[in-house]
């Protein structure tokens, strides 16, 4: 992983800069001040305010009795466990595909980035229309091929949630594939040549060379993707709007739903309920990156 690890500041010896404490330090504080102000006004204060709103035990009781919350919690878990693992597995396979040296694969990789490079709103709306039961291209195709009506994609909770997961995968797959490609390209080519000489099979090369080298990266990516997917509002909101009958909400959209209903305390309490899962992950990632 030599190319991926960036040496941190600790390696730099303390030079004459830090000995000229006064003016340098004053400049240091002055230059750091804008971010500190942003942090205090737009991170610390809102977070504190949010936690203060979520202080009533009664909010958690009503959350507990709200079937939509329970459903959203289950949906979020499905989104994380199935969605993320499927996505990372696809990214792992595709990263192996895209490092093949063919000119047509190079061109394909340029196109492959498109879902990540374009904004998500228009493309999600495009998918939404594709899944329209009457006018959408998918059901029209099903009708032409089988003579039967296709499913009402966004009106059945299970199908609708699966479609939201697919949209999420479509959007973020290129990013993770790109990262895993970087990891794979960092593996010394000599190892594969030696394995070829020894007559290793495709699977043995993956199992004993590729996987041990990218394992840590793969796990880090999975964790990071879990944290970010918790905040994926667009895939669900713009595709299903939480419907039908509020059965496809995830935590990210549920907070906005409660806000709309003017139940601010429930909105914050729902997010606080996710913190026991999120904070350890966040802390772990923070430690990893600040090394």
């Amino acid at each position, binding site marked *: 992983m030599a190319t991926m*690890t960036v040496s941190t500041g600790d390696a730099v010896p303390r030079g004459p800069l830090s000995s000229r404490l006064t003016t340098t330090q004053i400049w240091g504080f002055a230059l750091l001040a804008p971010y500190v102000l942003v*942090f205090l006004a737009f991170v610390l204060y809102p977070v504190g305010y949010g936690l203060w709103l979520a202080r009533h035990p009664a909010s958690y009781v009503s959350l507990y009795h709200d079937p939509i919350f329970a459903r959203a919690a289950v949906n979020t878990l499905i989104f994380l466990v199935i969605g993320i693992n499927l996505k990372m597995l696809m990214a792992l396979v595709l990263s192996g595909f895209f490092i093949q040296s063919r000119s047509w694969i190079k061109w394909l990789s340029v196109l492959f980035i498109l879902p990540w490079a374009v904004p998500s709103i228009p493309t999600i709306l*495009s998918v939404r229309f594709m899944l329209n039961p009457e006018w959408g291209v998918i059901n029209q195709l099903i009708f032409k091929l089988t003579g039967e009506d296709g499913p009402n994609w966004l009106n059945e909770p299970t199908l609708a949630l699966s479609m939201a997961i697919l949209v999420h995968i479509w959007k973020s797959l290129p990013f993770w594939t790109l990262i895993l490609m970087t990891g794979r390209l960092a593996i010394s080519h000599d190892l594969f040549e030696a394995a070829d000489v020894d007559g290793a099979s495709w699977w043995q090369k993956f199992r004993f060379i590729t996987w041990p080298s990218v394992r840590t990266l793969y796990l880090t990516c999975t964790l990071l993707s879990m944290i970010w997917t918790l905040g994926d509002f667009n895939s669900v909101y713009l595709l299903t709007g939480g419907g039908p009958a509020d059965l496809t909400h995830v935590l990210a959209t549920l907070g906005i739903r409660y806000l709309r209903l003017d139940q601010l305390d429930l909105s914050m309490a729902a997010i606080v309920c996710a913190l026991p899962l999120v904070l350890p992950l966040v802390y772990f990632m923070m430690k990893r990156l600040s090394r």
Partner: protein
Amino acid sequence: MKLPSLRDVGTEARLLLIGIPVLIWTLLPIYHMFLFAISPKEDAFAGKLWPDHPTLNNFSIVFNERHYFLSHFWLQLWNSTVIAVAVGALTLFIATAAAFSISRLRVKGGRLIMNLALFTYFIPAAFLAVPMYRTMGIYGLLNNHWALILAMVTIASPYAIWVLKQASDKLPVELDEAAIMDGATTLQLFRLVYIPLMMPSLVAIGTYALLLAWNEYLYAFLLLSKDTDITLPVALGNFLAADDSPWELLMTTGFIYALPPAAIYYAFKRYMVGGLTAGAVKS
């Protein structure tokens, strides 16, 4: 040149077997959007692979604002642009100053700030949306472009600081020492030594923040509501409110809206891929 062996043909076929589905999967929603944009309404709804009468009429309707959903198209495009540029510039300023302070001046407490910033980076943005909305209300900034600009700067800065700090840690400390020997002040060091050396990372970060703001939907629709204030993605979302949405116009507007970020991404790909993805996950 010898003929390809059976084994080579097999490998090539297997690669194509992955490549073709990948191509279809990637392009389908985008092509579908493009198809709607160049189709008259009847053709668009007929589920054809290519319209019988391709037309640019939809673009002309959008550009001339000839539909009540689009009556502020140019203004909303302008709003999106101003906000994205402001977020890019402000993030760049805040993050460069902070990274210089933490990495080169080794300011006291710099490490703590870096950790706090990273912590913010990993908190899902949707979780912060509701409290941010209330906070902006308290500050009296709701329905003001500054609300969205400041919110997006808050979201973009942590990662920006982290990437810039990683990049500046790699600059040799001797440079600073030499400049100070020559009598450079801290500000001169920042302006004349640091900024020029950091240029590639600065381009990457500026682009990152700009695209983040341009693409943002959730915060934009929470913080701005007047038709003359909102950005283009919020306007696109508003199309959905109606039952008889003009989908061909929605897709046309969406296509126009998606073009600049795609163009910027490919133009700065060199910086983006090196500067951002490799830094995003460190193993």
